[in-house]
Each structure stands twice: as structure tokens, then as C-alpha cells.
């Protein structure tokens, strides 16, 4: 982790209440896809922990869903606004543990870290199989970006307006040879995926309301088979065998 100043470079609407925000600054503390930044927004006491979608030497890309006043402010900040940021928080996905046949699964705004993960797997010579789930075609975003990476892409929508009608669990079941999952999305989705018998192991990204984001306040701890863990510091990625619901 380091404490840095990020400057807003752009914000564009991807769908409904989903935006892509690009920040510029020191990214040296970011080492793994699935880590997050904790942004100090003007007028708010607590920082906003937001998953990193992708990064390079000098920019960070975030996908932000408006969930309240803070995220509403964030996506509408003008280019040039500077944000005090705790960068490179959390443990991140480790695809080197994922074996030969992983599947990457993102649900809704949870697809954010899946993109950065897929790009790094591709760079390492692996063609990732990516399954994305949305409520409806009008809520879908980032499909072109995933295709541009050269991923094999599966899509499901709850209303069937795009891709398979159903849930990401149906997409995973359609590929029974896939025995390792790397995933981020809403809790009910994670729980349903966790229960799929075809998975021998996997990495699941959790979210929680956080106080500090760096492990000090234990505001975000959840029970695991190995005792209580801090979502911010010991996570946000937990491994299949340690998760309890």
C-alpha cells in the first residue's frame, strides 16, 4: 500500500449507472489484479474502496456503479480533480494457482477486476474463458473490451435479452471441464457458484463496508474456516476451501 495523489483524467458512462473512471498517478503499489484503491472524496469522512479494473505504469482504470452519494460524486468529477488515495490495497487474484482450465466469472459491476485479471492471463500466454452475467442487455458493458483482449466470452442475462437466458452459474455448468473459478460479483452469485460441484477450488472476491481499508479497524471482518478474516487486508479474495456462508 502507498498513499498517493491520483488525478481524474476521464469518466465515461458505460451503461445506466455504470461508469469507467480513469485516474493518473503513482501505481507502483498495485501488484495484483483484484486489489483495490481507497479514495478520499471531498466532503466525505470515510474513503470509498473501489476495485481496480486495470492499471499500467501511470494510470488506473476503475469501473464504478453509482451506489450512493459518494460514488455519484466520483463518476461526475471533472478531469484534473486530485484525490488523496490509498493505493494497492488487498491481496488480489493469483492466476498462477488456477491450473490448466480456469473460468473467470463476473457479475454486474463485479466484472471490473475480472478484466485486469484476464488481460494479465492473456499476457502470460493463457487464453481465458470469461463468463459475464447481467440483468439485461441494456445493463451490459465491457463486452467489446473483453473481446479485444482475445478472450473466449460467454454472456448470460436474467431476461434473455442477450446471450443465454439465466445466470452465470448456468454458463459455468455449460462448461463442466472447468474446475477452477476466479470470480467477483454480488454475494448471492458467489454463494451459488461456490456450491457448484464441478469446482475443485477457486478464488472469490468479497466486498464489505470498510472503516480503514488497510486492516487496522477490523470493521470488515467475516468468519472463515480459518477464523475471522479482514476483507480489506486478508482479502478481498478468499479461497474456496476457507469460505463459510
Amino acid at each position, binding site marked *: 500500500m502507498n498513499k498517493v495523489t491520483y488525478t481524474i483524467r476521464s469518466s465515461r458512462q458505460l451503461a445506466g449507472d455504470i461508469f469507467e473512471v480513469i485516474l493518473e498517478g503513482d501505481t507502483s503499489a498495485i501488484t495484483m489484479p483484484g486489489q483495490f484503491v481507497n479514495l478520499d472524496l471531498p466532503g466525505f*469522512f*470515510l474513503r470509498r474502496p473501489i476495485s481496480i479494473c486495470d492499471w499500467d505504469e501511470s494510470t488506473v482504470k476503475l469501473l464504478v456503479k453509482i451506489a450512493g452519494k459518494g460514488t455519484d460524486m466520483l463518476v461526475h468529477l471533472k478531469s484534473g480533480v486530485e484525490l488523496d488515495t490509498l493505493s494497492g490495497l488487498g491481496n488480489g487474484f493469483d492466476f498462477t494457482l488456477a491450473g490448466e482450465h480456469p473460468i473467470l466469472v463476473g457479475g454486474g459491476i463485479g466484472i471490473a477486476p475480472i478484466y485486469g485479471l484476464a488481460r494479465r492471463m492473456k499476457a502470460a500466454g493463457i487464453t481465458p474463458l470469461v463468463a459475464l452475467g447481467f440483468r439485461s442487455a441494456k445493463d451490459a458493458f465491457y463486452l467489446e473490451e473483453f473481446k479485444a483482449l482475445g478472450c473466449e466470452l460467454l454472456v448470460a442475462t436474467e431476461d434473455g435479452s442477450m446471450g443465454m437466458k439465466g445466470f452465470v452459474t448456468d454458463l459455468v455448468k455449460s462448461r463442466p471441464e472447468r474446475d477452477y473459478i476466479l470470480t467477483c460479483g454480488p454475494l448471492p452469485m458467489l454463494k451459488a457458484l461456490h456450491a457448484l460441484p464441478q469446482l475443485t477450488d477457486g478464488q472469490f472476491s468479497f466486498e*464489505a463496508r470498510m472503516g480503514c481499508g*488497510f486492516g*487496522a*479497524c*477490523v*470493521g470488515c*471482518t467475516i*468468519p472463515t474456516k480459518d477464523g475471522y478474516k479482514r476483507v480489506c487486508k486478508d482479502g478481498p479474495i478468499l479461497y474456496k476451501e476457507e469460505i463459510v456462508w
Partner: protein
Amino acid sequence: MVNLSVNLAGVELKNPIIPASGTFGFGREYAELYDINILGSFSWKGTTADMRLGNPQPRIAEMAGGMLNAVGLQNPGIDAVIRDEVPNIAKIFSGPVIANIGGFSLEEYAENCRKLNDVEQVGIIEVNISCPNVHAGGKNFGSDPALAAQVTEAVKKATNKPVFMKLTPNVTDIAAIAKACEDAGADGVCLINTLLGMRINLNTKKPLIANRTGGVSGPAVFPVAVRMVWDVYEAVKIPIIGCGGVSSAEDVAEMMLAGATAVEVGAANLKDPYACKTIIENLPAVCERLGVANISELTGGAHK
């Protein structure tokens, strides 16, 4: 050259800045970020006799000018703290540490103090009396002068170390509680703990925190804390650790002028992990502006 040292009931601190219990863990996370030896001391995470898992999620909520928490005294228990954390504290911090303890009975408080009596690096025991008394129908020890005095007597019998009682602001007359602690032998008092609060989630129409209520902290409570330190300073002679919403070196000076000998910094650490470092760096300039060569001269200055 400003002298920042203060004396808390016989314990010398190089400066009055102490990260508050519950915002600094056992020092590990901050020691990764900066040399925590610059601190006067730190108050470790509230420790009870047995391990406590704490409250269900969510435990944290936000508000204008601060936050609410209902962590619920999650801690590994006193034996694990002495076994696993104390040796690590010795590696990352050379000064006296403040051991914050909780308890649900007089015997639990006393037993925790007995176990800490031989832990050399513990300079002060800070006794959180905001826990409900399991033997008195759940009434908080800290909300009744007679109960607060009973805890004070019990812990004083159990340890030779200086004992500071950490007081809750959720009372009608905090000065009366402080006086009862002083009369029962307390070496000092620390105030304020968090103010009881609640937020309601408009989507679910239910309390936002799973525990329903949470403790309010952050800059919004600062004037409440200053007022209470002022009131307690008028009522007792023992030293006061001022705590509540402190975010800057100026806030530290204000808290000391109200009557504090040392100052704890809480929620500010969660927002900015370097908050205490920045405050310590800014203290000499604030002292110079106020015309004091020794920061300890500020204590109680507003009462003169």
C-alpha cells in the same frame, strides 16, 4: 526547540500523541507504513479475557463529519495478546504501551490486570468501562458512579501499574463518574469513548449497522469531547487523556487547553494512516504559535 514530553501519572511520554484503542490494532499495520517510535504511546485494541469474534456485518456506517462502528470488541483474548502480540510490539515500538482492557464482570477486569502486571512494556492499563455488566442486568459499568468505582477498586487491587479509566460520554454527568473513579483510586481517566448513534438504511428501512446501534466518532464529536474534558478537569486532580474527534495539531492544543495531559487520536487514523505522524510533525509550530516552550504548559490553560 519545543519540549513535547508529557508525564502521565509517572509515565514519561516523548509527546502527548497516542493512537486510540480500536483504531491502531496492535501496531502491526501502521509499523508497515512508518516508524511508530515517533508516537508518545499507543493504546492497543480492547482486550477481554476470552477471544471475541465481534458483531455481524455490517459494522461500519458513515455520517457527516465522522463514522459509526459496532465492531463489538473483536479480539484474540488476553492470553493470546500476551503470547502473540506483546513480543511483536517489543520489535516495533520501544516506548511504554497502553493496554486497553474490557470486561463483563469485576473478576474479569481484575484477572486481565493481574495478567498484565508482569508485562514490562505495558506502561498504563486503560480500563474500558463501557461494557455491559453481565451481573447487573447489562447496565454499563461506566454509566453509574458506584459501578465505575467498583471496577476501579478491583483493578487497583490487581495491578501496580497506573490505571486509567476510559469513560463513556453516554451519561448525564461524566464529571461525577470521573470523580467516583478518582475517589476509588484511579491514576487517571481517558475520555471520551464513542457516542451511541444509529443510521437507518432508506432502501431496507432498517438500521444500517447489524448491531442496530454504533459508536459515533470523528471530527463531529470533537466539541463534545472538549466540553467533557473541560468538565472533568474542573472535577478531578488526576491526569486526563483527552480523546474524541482529534484530527490536527491544533485540535491537540485545544484538547490540552481544556484539561488533557495527553491526547488520543482515533478515527483520524482510519481515514489517514499517517494522521498521528502528521500531527506530531505539526505540534512544535503550534506550540510556538501559542508561545509555550513545553507543551505540558497547555494542560488546563483555558481554565485560568
